[in-house]
């Protein structure tokens, strides 16, 4: 109770108070100090509530980058970072789908197979049968959606945990992929085709990357500002203008530095643009729509959701459909990167990396906590380790061990923060 009131007081205090005669600080200095203080209190509150947010992840990413940069100075070169930003997209998109599934407290093991299946569907339709690229692309993505929907509906109806149903899916979809690829084995995609362009096209004009950074930061600022004004008008607790400015400022710095680095190489990669738009769009779906609220509710308590008249079957089906769709889209990006589809597409560590990315990024394995942005942070860490290992000629074995260690640490943080949250509630 005390904690709650304390926090409310913090928020309302954000409004300017009467100038204090004692302090001779310039006004702006005081405002910034107050914003920082605001942030610190907010952070401490979240810390005590067991919500670390993305801070540990960002620190790990920073550590990985610093270590590899000290081992090889090419690591943070524009070329390597730009390649990194394209390499994360395929697996990253699959990880975004995994985030949805983890949010309802389930696990999808079929995403690797679905990504391979979608790539094979595209390749066979387009290359072997001459179907136009755009049509083959749509059919490939819909194949993923269909596979996910079937799995989701089966889980919901049979009440069998999703990891079991999708384990069956893993084998089935892989079998179908091998079947449609036939004996040909490997299909090479058109080097100048639509799918190849997904990861090879760059907006070479400097304006593209800077423009995206400006639009992104500007939108975040405007939305937060509008919300603040509306809350202010209604006499509700709200963030201070300084707080919003600091937050957007940090975001803008990150965005513009990224844009600067990308422009030093070949400009803004189309793949990265698509990735960011998808992640931001799905983040809004999850956190700002009725559908997203249902997803989180299911992860909190299926029974509570049911008693609140939610259609559990529909939400579970929809979530696995999203993950199947994202797996298909990710599979097309992975195929685009190597402009070919083979019997090995979608196999190997892809599934594990996608799940690890979501969890490392901070999505809880226990359901109900996480955002699509965690997939971005997680895949950045995994791909940075992979790229750093490649650049420093470290054997794959070591790469696996290190990624495993990071994953273990992430799971540990997840379960600790969950426990601290519960302990907090009991107090």
């Amino acid at each position, binding site marked *: *109770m005390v*904690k*709650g*009131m304390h*926090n*409310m007081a913090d928020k309302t205090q954000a409004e300017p108070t009467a100038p204090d005669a004692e302090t001779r600080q310039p006004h702006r200095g005081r405002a910034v100090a107050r914003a920082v203080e605001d942030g610190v209190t907010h952070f401490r509150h979240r810390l005590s*509530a*067991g*919500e670390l947010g993305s801070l540990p992840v960002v620190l790990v990413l920073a550590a990985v980058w610093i270590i590899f940069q000290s081992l090889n100075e090419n690591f943070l070169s524009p070329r390597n970072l730009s390649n990194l930003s394209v390499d994360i997209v395929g697996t990253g998109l699959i990880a975004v789908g995994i985030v949805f599934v983890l949010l309802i407290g389930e696990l999808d093991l079929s995403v690797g197979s679905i990504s391979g299946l979608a790539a094979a569907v595209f390749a066979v339709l387009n290359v072997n049968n001459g179907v136009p690229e755009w049509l083959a692309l749509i059919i490939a993505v819909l194949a993923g959606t269909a596979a996910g929907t079937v799995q989701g509906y089966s889980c919901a109806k049979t009440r069998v945990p999703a990891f079991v149903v999708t384990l069956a899916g893993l084998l089935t979809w892989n079998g179908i992929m091998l079947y449609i690829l036939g004996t040909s084995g490997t299909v090479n995609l058109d080097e100048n085709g639509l799918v190849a362009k997904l990861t090879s096209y760059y907006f070479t004009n400097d304006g593209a990357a800077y423009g995206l950074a400006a639009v992104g930061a500007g939108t975040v600022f405007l939305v937060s500002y509008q*919300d603040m004004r*509306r*809350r202010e008008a*209604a006499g*509700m607790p709200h963030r201070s203008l300084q707080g919003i400015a600091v937050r957007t400022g940090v975001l803008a710095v990150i965005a513009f530095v990224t844009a600067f680095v990308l422009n030093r190489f070949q400009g803004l990669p189309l793949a990265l643009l698509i990735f960011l738009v998808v992640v931001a769009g799905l983040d*809004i779906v999850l956190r*700002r*729509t*009725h559908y997203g*609220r249902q997803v*989180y*509710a299911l*992860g*909190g*308590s299926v*029974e*509570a*959701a*049911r*008693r*609140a*008249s*939610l259609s559990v079957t529909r939400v579970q089906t929809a979530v696995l459909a999203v993950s199947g769709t994202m797996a298909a889209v990710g599979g097309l990006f992975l195929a685009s990167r190597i402009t070919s589809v083979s019997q090995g597409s979608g196999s190997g560590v892809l599934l594990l990396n996608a799940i690890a990315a979501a969890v490392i990024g901070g999505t809880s394995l226990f*359901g*109900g*906590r996480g955002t699509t942005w965690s997939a971005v942070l997680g895949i950045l860490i995994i791909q940075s380790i992979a790229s750093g290992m490649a650049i420093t000629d470290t054997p794959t074995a070591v790469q696996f061990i290190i990624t495993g260690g990071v994953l273990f640490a992430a799971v540990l943080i997840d379960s600790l923060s969950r426990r601290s*949250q*519960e302990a*907090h*509630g009991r*107090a």
Partner: protein
Amino acid sequence: MPTPPLLALHGVCKRFGVVEVLTDIELEIHAGQVVALLGDNGAGKSTLVKVISGVAPADKGAIEWEGRTVQIRRPHDARDLGIATVYQDLALCGNLDVVGNLFLGREIRRFGFLDEMEMERRTRHLLERLTRGIPDLRAPVVSLSSGQRQTVAIARSLLGDPRVLLLDEPTAALGFEQTSEVLDLVDRLRDRGLGVLLISHNMGDIKALADRAAVLRLGRNNGFFDVNTASQEQIISSVTGATENVPRRMASQEAGW
């Protein structure tokens, strides 16, 4: 002709597997009345609440709403009728914040997106009626104390302007002051014409608040009482089983109300 009860149950049976948890239950809830539902642990009180709220639909028997037979097959049906419930286990989503829990399943939207501000405003308004120390509305519900959680569950049940309120031990986790705040609220809701089913083990509260009492014993009706005329000893002996179940006489007593 007297107005039919808001909600009436006739011959309701419910079994879980081979166990018959409720047998031939009769119950009436009238507008502007508080009915206390009493019984020992395991008597079937919570199960009866779940039958009415559509969480565990009845296997047999009839449910009437204002004299007309209705089907309550899922929580949605009960909500559409105007039945709101505070469950014994509260049924909150621990990961959602207070606002999210209150509006779960009936979010307010603005341009198709969740209108967090409006929902927060109404949540604050509602909670201010219920309690003096409002919890942090944006904290996940797991991080609240059990009393605060109970307050959230009660607030949620009031949200859709229900006509019948089912309260399954709503004050079990509350302190002295909060308990009296909630009981005051139930009193006011009765005055506004709601029908309330109140499950409580506290005879003092029941004596002070309820109009009628229905006793369950081993999944069967074991007596109906007018709280104003029946003595506390009479009611307690019915709960503990000292007075045996006499279905015929009960039915005539029920008709006499």
